[in-house]
């Protein structure tokens, strides 16, 4: 709205995911790995274990190369990327938390300096001073995590900040502590994972077995605490407590939250292998463990990101940059008048207006046919359907930001969306069940689920096919916000069949049927 929008064909979220997941994995290693270095070095020196000390030294080189180069630069990369895809959100975060970022920068500065002194000091500093450098490194890295955690969690659960806009109220928000525990012990687990990798390059023998078990202890213990803290975290997110979001209001949320839980279990179980039978540990298993850790971390971050839809800062700013407090004004003046980056030509050019509205209000989260692609839906929709849906965008299940288009704006956006419709007739499933699911997903499933969020399972329980057919004719008159139904005969028939049978299937399959429409309607 306030800023131009980068038209990324891959989707802004995908670019952000690549940068952030890779960075977060390495940056947590930078914290947990720092603790591993000093604790293991202390242990080696205490026991006068030259072999272990040499292992720590050689691992520290890998540690430095990964965390100082990739970790540090990709951290700057997150800044760069969020500035590009969510300038309004970034601006709000640096205005509210510039001193938080500045404090974090001091620790970042110390962290980098201490890491270099620690590494280059191996052969120059005495043991006590060297260890002290390691502790300075770890404490700085940990403080960096502790500060960024406050700002990141603030975005999902700003808590009392929404009323008083005070720095520390938002910082120590409802998910601050569980998230801090997850991130700290996640870092410890990742330290174990990466040191298991270094250990797998050692020649087989007693030392490798010993060091493999030691590192596996870090990975396993870290994951156990992460599992416990994840439950605490979930219970701390107020907007998840009513379960709307988890039941399909945010379609992708239950999916990625499920992956996160599964990832924690699989990673913990995998870490048990080197703990219990270190002799079997090898490079192939390391690769699997790293991949699991990375995917788990990715799912966790995705859960957090998805969990605040449709906001950038929950309850304050929508992903389009619109402030919740500005909604009444936008409702009064319309969407084009509320956005700065609408071409002057759009005033007399409906096609230009549709294009610019799409860029300003849809592009921040959607693409044509990639991430959150619209083409798979548009393929099955005709003009009447799109026109009936556009005025009701904010009612949709992905919990979209408010849309207050004027009639002219709705028509312009409809026309533009139809330019994205794939050419030719869309493929339609021959299997009646799949056809029914698809028909549901591209119509009722946009706003409802079968038995989760805004459930329909009971609504059609006592209706026969003719009654449902009649109902669809008058769908647009049933309630405000309910669009009319314009599906062609083939879709209509499949939808009626689905609506008639879903109640029985729900009873048989339980809540799993709620997933219908969830998988296809990713947000």
């Amino acid at each position: 709205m306030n800023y131009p929008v980068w038209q990324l064909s891959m989707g802004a979220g995908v670019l952000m995911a690549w940068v952030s997941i890779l960075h977060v994995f390495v940056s947590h290693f930078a914290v947990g790995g720092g603790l591993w270095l000093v604790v293991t070095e202390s242990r080696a020196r205490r026991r006068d274990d030259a072999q272990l000390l040499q292992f720590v030294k050689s691992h520290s080189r890998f540690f430095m190369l990964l965390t100082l180069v990739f970790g540090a630069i990709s951290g700057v990369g997150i800044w760069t990327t969020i500035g590009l895809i969510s300038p309004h959100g970034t601006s709000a975060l640096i205005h509210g938390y510039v001193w938080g970022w500045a404090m974090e920068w001091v620790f970042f500065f110390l962290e980098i300096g201490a890491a270099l002194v620690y590494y280059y000091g191996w052969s120059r500093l005495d043991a006590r001073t060297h260890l002290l450098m390691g502790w300075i490194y770890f404490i700085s890295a940990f403080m960096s995590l502790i500060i960024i955690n406050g700002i990141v969690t603030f975005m999902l659960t700003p808590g009392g900040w929404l009323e008083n806009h005070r720095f520390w109220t938002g910082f120590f928000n409802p998910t601050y502590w569980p998230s801090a525990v997850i991130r700290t012990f996640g870092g410890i687990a990742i330290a174990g994972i990466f040191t298991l990798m270094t250990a797998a390059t050692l020649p087989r023998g007693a030392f490798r077995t010993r060091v493999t078990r030691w590192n596996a202890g870090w990975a396993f213990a870290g994951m156990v605490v992460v599992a416990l803290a994840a439950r605490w975290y979930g219970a701390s997110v107020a907007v998840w407590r009513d379960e709307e979001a988890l039941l399909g209001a945010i379609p992708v949320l239950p999916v990625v939250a499920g992956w996160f839980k599964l990832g924690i279990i699989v990673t913990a179980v995998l870490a048990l292998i080197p703990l219990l039978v270190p002799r079997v540990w090898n490079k192939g298993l390391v690769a699997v463990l790293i991949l699991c850790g990375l995917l788990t971390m990715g799912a966790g971050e995705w859960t957090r990101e998805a969990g605040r839809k449709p906001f950038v800062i929950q309850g304050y700013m929508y992903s389009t940059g619109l402030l919740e407090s500005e909604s009444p004004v936008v409702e009064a003046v319309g969407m084009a008048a509320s956005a700065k980056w609408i071409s002057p030509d759009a005033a007399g050019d409906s096609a230009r207006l549709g294009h610019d509205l799409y860029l300003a209000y849809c592009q921040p989260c959607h693409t044509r046919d990639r991430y959150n692609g619209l083409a798979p839906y548009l393929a099955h929709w005709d003009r009447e359907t799109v026109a009936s849906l556009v005025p009701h965008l904010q009612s949709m299940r992905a919990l979209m930001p408010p849309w207050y288009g004027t009639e002219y704006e709705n028509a312009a956006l409809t026309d533009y969306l139809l330019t994205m419709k794939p050419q030719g007739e869309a493929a339609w499933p021959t299997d009646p069940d799949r056809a029914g699911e698809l028909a549901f997903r591209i119509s009722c499933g946009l706003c409802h689920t079968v038995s989760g969020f805004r459930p329909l399972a009971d609504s059609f329980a006592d209706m026969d096919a003719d009654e449902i057919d009649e109902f669809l004719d008058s769908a647009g008159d049933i309630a405000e916000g309910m669009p009319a139904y314009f599906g062609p005969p083939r879709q209509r028939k499949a939808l009626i069949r689905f609506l008639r049978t879903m109640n029985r299937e729900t009873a048989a399959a339980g809540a799993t049927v709620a997933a219908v429409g969830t998988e296809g309607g990713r947000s």
Partner: protein
Amino acid sequence: MNPQAIIPSPDALPLPAPVFVLQLLLQLTFLLHLVAMNALLGGLLITFFARLRGRGPDDPWTGLADALSKVTPSLVAATVTLGVAPLLFLQVLYGQFLFTSSILMGWGWFSVVVVLIFAYYGTYLQSFRGRALGGGQVPLLGLTVILFLWVGFMFTNNTTLMLQVRKWAPMYFADARGLHLNLTDPQLWPRYLHMVLGAVAVGGLMLAGWGRARLTRGDGRGTFMMSTGLGAFTWFTLANILFGLWYFLAQPGAVRKLFMGGDGTATALLGLGLVVGIVLVMVGFMLRRQGEHAGLWPVGVLTAVQMVTMIMIRDVARGGTLGVHYRPETFAVRTQALNLAIFAVLLLGGVGVMVWMLRQLYLAWER
């Protein structure tokens, strides 16, 4: 289209400190970043030149390139770390402009991150593997230099495009895929080259300082470092006076007028910069004649004065170019005094710890 209509509104949240405090921090941290960046980029270009000149392992040029390659990764770390803070304060004060220009050149701006990672690893490869790279050493170094020059070029593109508010609408409405650069701006090349040449000059002076430190410890290789460093400093400072004039002439007329008597402070700064630049060249030639006995402190202090002057000139030029489009007086301010104080204490403590750590390493190395 009236540019004012599309310039993003200031953030709804108030600034957490008065504008002058944030300005001061921006200029101060930018100065520190500039020192590190000059050491890095200037050092890299000198390394590349030395590597090309070096004939065999005993050639002093080869020795110089080896020595510089060893410290380059740490200079990257310093440059990046010290670059984060000014970028933060720039976004706080000029976010409306910087975010917009970044989006217009989206892929170019994003490329900085990817390119920097490869460039950074390139310096470590040079540092750790050194001559073991064999015939690949020069091409690898050349590639690393190009990558760092690319990063600088993108920064110059962005910091000039953020001021060209009249260009934004035509660019964006023609193509929103983030493929623009600011190549048609007459300021772009002189500004970029002025920065690169300045980096070689200041990097050369630091090299001379390193040579002096070696000589003090009785290491004869310091003589070559001093003469090479002072040569780079003098000649590149001389060239930079000419590039600086080009940069000045490329400024919009209104900005040029500010420096030509329209504004007392601006005129004084430009005059000071010009005079100090000429003095630095004269002193540089004089020091070169003195050889290894040359005293570097006065020229070091004068160079620091020149860098501060240049940063202030930049700031005045930025303000002059944005003109009425930038009105900091419209920003709401709600000072977070406690947080500012915590930051100040942490910063002082952090600098103290950093100095202590480096001193420990230095003392151990001396032993």
